[in-house]
C-alpha cells in the first residue's frame, strides 16, 4: 500500500470509535427523550365535594332550561375536570354531527374538552383496537355496536362501568332491552355500556302514491286488496312490482322520465346482509342451531332459503341496476323521488324531511316491517335491530371518570331526548330512541308541529314535520318486534361470508340454495377457528325468539 493511500485510510479503531459513538449518541438521546416526555396528569379520582342538588321534576315544558336530572348531576360533577381532554370515537356521517353539537354544549357547561374523532362505520372497531393495543390513551369513549362485545371484552379494550354507575346513579329505569345493550345478558350484574342508539329497520313508503286514487283503483283491480303499506313480504313484492314504472309510463297520472322503482332497498355487497337478516326472522330463520353440546350454522335452513328467494324475486322491481344499490343510491334515490318503498334505519325519517334538496318532504309514511303469515293465520313480523349503539369506556382511557360523566350526561333522559329528535340540515342525527319515554309522542308533536324549534334541535329550521309522531310510533312498533343482530366472536368473518354469498345470489351468479349452502360451509370453518365453546358462550338462541328482549 502506498504512503498516500495509507494516509487516506482511517484506522479500523478510529472508524469503530466514531461509528460506535454515533450509535450510542442516538440511543442515549432517544432514551432521554422518552424519559423526559411530559406525563399526562390524571385528575384525582377521589370526590372532594358532595353533589347536593336533587332531581326536582320531569321535563314538561320546552327545555330552554334543562330540569335537574342525572344529566345535570354529571355536569356538576364534571366541573372539577375542567380542561380535561376526552377523545370520543363516533361513526362519521351518521353520529358525527349530532355528537359534535352535544360535545360542544358539554364543553361549554363543564370546561372540559370532548373531542369527536369520526371514523367510518367499521373503522370504529379497528380504531379502538389499534389505539388500545398501542395504549395511546387517545380514545376514552366510543360508540360501538353490541355485536363487537365479544371482540372488545375478550381483548380487554373496554371496561365495565359499575363503579361509576354506583357512584353517579344514572337513570336507566326505562331503557329498552337494557340487558342486551349493556351485555348484562352474558354477564349478569356487569354493565359494560350506556345505551345511546336503538337501531331497527323501518318500512318507509310514499304516502302520496299510496293515497293516489288512480293508483289505488288500478291496484285493487289487479290484486283484489287495497293499496296500503304491505302486511306481508308477498304483498311487498306485489306492490313493488305494481309501482315499478319504465320511462314514459304513468305514475299518479304523469309520465316518468326515468325508471321508477317500486322498492329501492340496499342490495350491494358491503351491507346487503342486514337486509337479508331483516327478512329471515319472520320466516322463522335463525343464524345458528344450538344444542347442549353443539352449534351448527342454520343460515341455509329452508326458512332462510325461502327468505332469500323472495328477496331475489323482489329485487328487479326497483331502479335500474337494482342489485347494485348501495347507501348513496338507496338514500339519494328515495329522496330524489325515484322509489315508492324503502327499508332503512330510523335516521332516514328526518333525513327525507330535512336533507337539502329532498323531493319527498311531507310525502313519506312510516310502517311496521312486513311479516310472514303463519299457519294459524296470524302474521309474524320481525325487524332487524341492525347495529344499534352503546357508549363504551376504553380500558386505556387516561381520564375514565371524566369520560364516564360525559357519557352519563349525553345518555341522560333530557339530553338524549334532544339527541334523538336532532335533525339539522347539515347534521342529520342518527341517534334513535332507546328509552320508553322517548317514544312518547308529546315532545315530538311539540317540536315538529311548530315552526319555532322549542327543543333547539333543528338549528332554527322552521319547516315542521307533521309525520314526526307517526315516525316515532313506527319506530316503537318495529323495535317491539326487533330481531337482534348476529352477536358472536369473529362476527366480521361470518358477516363478510354471508355478504359475499348474498351478492352472488342477488346478481344471479349462484342460486339461493347454493349461496347459502356455501355460506354454511364457510361458517362451519369459522366456528372451528373461533372456538365452538366461545361461539356457544355468546350465541343465546332464546335471545332471538319473539318477545325475549324485555321492553
Amino acid at each position: 500500500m502506498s504512503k498516500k493511500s495509507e494516509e487516506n485510510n482511517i484506522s479500523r479503531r478510529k472508524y469503530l470509535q466514531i461509528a460506535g459513538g454515533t450509535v450510542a449518541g442516538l440511543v442515549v438521546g432517544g432514551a432521554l427523550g422518552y424519559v423526559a416526555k411530559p406525563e399526562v396528569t390524571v385528575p384525582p379520582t377521589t370526590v372532594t365535594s358532595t353533589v347536593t342538588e336533587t332531581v326536582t321534576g320531569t321535563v314538561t315544558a320546552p327545555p330552554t332550561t334543562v330540569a335537574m336530572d342525572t344529566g345535570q348531576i354529571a355536569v356538576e360533577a364534571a366541573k372539577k375536570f375542567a380542561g380535561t381532554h376526552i377523545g370520543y370515537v363516533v361513526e362519521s356521517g351518521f353520529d358525527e354531527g349530532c355528537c359534535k353539537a352535544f360535545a360542544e354544549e358539554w364543553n361549554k357547561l363543564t370546561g372540559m374538552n370532548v373531542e369527536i374523532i369520526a371514523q367510518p362505520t367499521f373503522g370504529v372497531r379497528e380504531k379502538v383496537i389499534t389505539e388500545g393495543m398501542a395504549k395511546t390513551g387517545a380514545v376514552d369513549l366510543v360508540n360501538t355496536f353490541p355485536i363487537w362485545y365479544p371482540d372488545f371484552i375478550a381483548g380487554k379494550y373496554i371496561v365495565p362501568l359499575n363503579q361509576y354507575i354506583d357512584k353517579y346513579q344514572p337513570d336507566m329505569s326505562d331503557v329498552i332491552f337494557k340487558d342486551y345493550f349493556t351485555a348484562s345478558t352474558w354477564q349478569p350484574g356487569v354493565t359494560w355500556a350506556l345505551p345511546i342508539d336503538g337501531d331497527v329497520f323501518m318500512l318507509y313508503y310514499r304516502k302520496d302514491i299510496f293515497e293516489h286514487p288512480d293508483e289505488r283503483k288500478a291496484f285493487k283491480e289487479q290484486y283484489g286488496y287495497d293499496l296500503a303499506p304491505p302486511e306481508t313480504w308477498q304483498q311487498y313484492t306485489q306492490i313493488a312490482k305494481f309501482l315499478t314504472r319504465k320511462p314514459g309510463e304513468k305514475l299518479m297520472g304523469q309520465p316518468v322520465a326515468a325508471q321508477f322503482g317500486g322498492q329501492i332497498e340496499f342490495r350491494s355487497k358491503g351491507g346487503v346482509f342486514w337486509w337479508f337478516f331483516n327478512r329471515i326472522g319472520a320466516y322463522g330463520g335463525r343464524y345458528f342451531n344450538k344444542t347442549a353440546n353443539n352449534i351448527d350454522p342454520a343460515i341455509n335452513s329452508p326458512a332462510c332459503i325461502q327468505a332469500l328467494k323472495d328477496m331475489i324475486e323482489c329485487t328487479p322491481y326497483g331502479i335500474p341496476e337494482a342489485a347494485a344499490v348501495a347507501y348513496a343510491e338507496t338514500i339519494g334515490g328515495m329522496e330524489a323521488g325515484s322509489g315508492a318503498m324503502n327499508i332503512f334505519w330510523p335516521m332516514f325519517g328526518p333525513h327525507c324531511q330535512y336533507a337539502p334538496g329532498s323531493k319527498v318532504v311531507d310525502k313519506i309514511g312510516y310502517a311496521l316491517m312486513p311479516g310472514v303469515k303463519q299457519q294459524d293465520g296470524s302474521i309474524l313480523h320481525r325487524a332487524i335491530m341492525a347495529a344499534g349503539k352503546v357508549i363504551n369506556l376504553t380500558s386505556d382511557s387516561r381520564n375514565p371518570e371524566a369520560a364516564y360523566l360525559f357519557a352519563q350526561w349525553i345518555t341522560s333522559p333530557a339530553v338524549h331526548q334532544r339527541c334523538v329528535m336532532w335533525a339539522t340540515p347539515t347534521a342529520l342525527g342518527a341517534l334513535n330512541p332507546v328509552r320508553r319515554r322517548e317514544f312518547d309522542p308529546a315532545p315530538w308533536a311539540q317540536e315538529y308541529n311548530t315552526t319555532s324549534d322549542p327543543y333547539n334541535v333543528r338549528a332554527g329550521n322552521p319547516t315542521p314535520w307533521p309525520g314526526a309522531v307517526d315516525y316515532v310510533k313506527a319506530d316503537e312498533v318495529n323495535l317491539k318486534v326487533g330481531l337482534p343482530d348476529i352477536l358472536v366472536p369473529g362476527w366480521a368473518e361470518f358477516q363478510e361470508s354471508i355478504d359475499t354469498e348474498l351478492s352472488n345470489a342477488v346478481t344471479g351468479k349462484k342460486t339461493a340454495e347454493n349461496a347459502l349452502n356455501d355460506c354454511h360451509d364457510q361458517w362451519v370453518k369459522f366456528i372451528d377457528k373461533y372456538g365452538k365453546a366461545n361461539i356457544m358462550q355468546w350465541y343465546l338462541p332464546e335471545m332471538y325468539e319473539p318477545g325475549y328482549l324485555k321492553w
Partner: protein
Amino acid sequence: MGWIEAKWTRRRYGLLMVLPCVAVLASLMIVPLIYELALSFHEWVWGSGLGWMFNWGLSYVKVLTDPRFSTSLYNTLIIGGSSLALEFAIGFALAFLLNREIRGRSVLVAAFTSPMMLIPVMVAHLWRIMYFQGSGPIDPIVKSVLGYSILWLQDPWASKFANVFANTWEWAPFTMLILLAGFTAIPVTLYEAARVDGASSWQMFTRITLPMARPLIVLALLIRAMEEIKLFDVIYLITTGGPGTETETVTLYIFRQAFQFLDMGKAAASSFILLIIVTVIATVSIRYMYRP
C-alpha cells in the same frame, strides 16, 4: 481537525454523515419487514385476548389453499393487467402526439394530467355515479352505441372493467408524462441523420424512438405495475370487491384479513407472498431495462 483531514477521505467522511439517516431508514424498512416475517409464522388474531402462537408457517398454507386468495390473484391480473395495458396504450399515444411543437401544448399537457391531481376517493365516487344505470351518463351513451345496457356494477366482467376504466382515466396521464420526458430527451440530430439517410417514419420510430426510450418505457410500466398490484381505493369504493368476489384484488384480500377479520398472521403471510411476486416482476423488469 488536522488528524481527521489526514486520516479521512471525502468519501468516508460522507459515509459517516449519512450513517444516521441510513440507520433511521433501515429501522423504518428493515425492522418492520423482519417483524412481519416473524408474524407470518405465527397465529395472531386481534381481539382474541391471545398473543402470538408459532404455527410453523401454517398461515402460508392457509393462504395458498384459500380459494379466495387465488381468485384475488386472478382478479389482480385481469384488472391490473388490463389497466396497465390501457394506460400504456393511451399514455404512449398521447406522449407521441404531444412530442412536437404545437400551439397550446403546455395547456394540453396540463389538461391531460388533471385527473392525476384528483384524490382517488373522489375519482371512485365520480365514476360510480357515472356508471350507475339509473342516474349516470354512461348508460345512455352505451345504449345508443350498442343497443343494450351494460350492468357495470352488477355484471361479473363489466364490474372488473368498470374499475379498469376508472383507474386508467386517472393514471394514463402519469404514463404519458414519463414517456413524454423520454421522447423529448432523444436528440433531434438522430432523427435528422436518419432522415438524410432516407429512413421512413416507421423506421425512425422502431429504430430510434423505441430503443432510445426503452429505459423510460420499462420504468413507466414497472411503476404502474407496482401501483396496479396495490390498487385498493378505487375498487373498494366502486364495487367493494363485488359482486361476490369478482373484483376482490390481492390488496383488498389482505385488507380484509388484517382490518376486518383481524387475522394478522394470515395477513402477514399473504403480504409476503405478494412481496415475492412483486420482487420477481421488478427484478425481471430492471434486468430488461438495462439490457444493452
